[in-house]
């Protein structure tokens, strides 16, 4: 059996709700992208002062070996990610649906 073209986009879409540093979720996502030889897209939701997401990656992308990364959105504020249900959190949910739908449509 040959590998099927199931992972077609070869991209990991990382959602962050905290711009903390160090950021274990971002770290995990970028290292996973490197292991899988995928590119990464980053979508961050922050309540505090916006700061460049790249500043969360001290050594730069090359330190993780990720192929590439683009930042889709840096701030949707002041909406917390949880524990609200999606329909109560329509702005955030709408943004997510848009970004994920756009990703899906690329297939």
């Amino acid at each position, binding site marked *: 059996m040959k590998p*099927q073209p199931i992972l077609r986009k070869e991209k*990991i879409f990382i959602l962050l709700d905290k711009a903390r540093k160090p950021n*274990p*979720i971002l770290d*995990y996502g970028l290292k996973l992208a490197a*292991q*899988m030889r995928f590119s990464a897209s980053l979508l961050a939701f922050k309540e505090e002062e916006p700061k460049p997401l790249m500043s969360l990656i001290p050594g730069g992308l090359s330190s993780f070996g990720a192929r590439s990364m683009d930042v889709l959105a840096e701030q949707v504020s002041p909406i917390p990610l949880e*524990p609200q249900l999606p329909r109560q959190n329509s702005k955030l949910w709408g943004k997510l649906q848009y970004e994920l739908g756009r990703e899906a449509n690329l297939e």
Partner: protein
Amino acid sequence: MLEGSDPKHKLQELLGTFDTRLAGATDLPVLILPASTNWKGVNKLLYVMDAEDLNQKALKIMYTLSKRLQARLEVVMISEEAIGQSEGDFLLVRENIQQEFPDVSLSLHKIYGEQKLEEVKFLIEATEADWLVFEKKDRNLFDRLFDDYHNHKLIQESPIPCLVF
């Protein structure tokens, strides 16, 4: 990929938190990380599937994923039937998987009975898996009230990242 969150009350446990609902709402595979997760590579996948519902597409996804990650695959077949009654199904599924995955390192496990969630948690620990992987199951609220084996509960109770597709 996103961080998981603990339900703050029983209703949220049943209806789902943001991450579990997102996993159910999108067609893309979703990886949910427990807050305490630290990267240590992905070397072993624990794939949970229904023994009575052999899904060829899901098997291809698992094959592609394990090849891409160069990860060992632990396949867990869950059966609603009592021990013995589904033995024929189990043997058929095992044969099918072994044919489909000739060059992937894998082990097979089977779970019967009522304590499915606890058995899955035991296997996570026993196999030292890095990810728990499963397909979305459509369970309504009524089902979730009386059975603890469903998407939300698996994600909430898993000590390791969950990949849902």
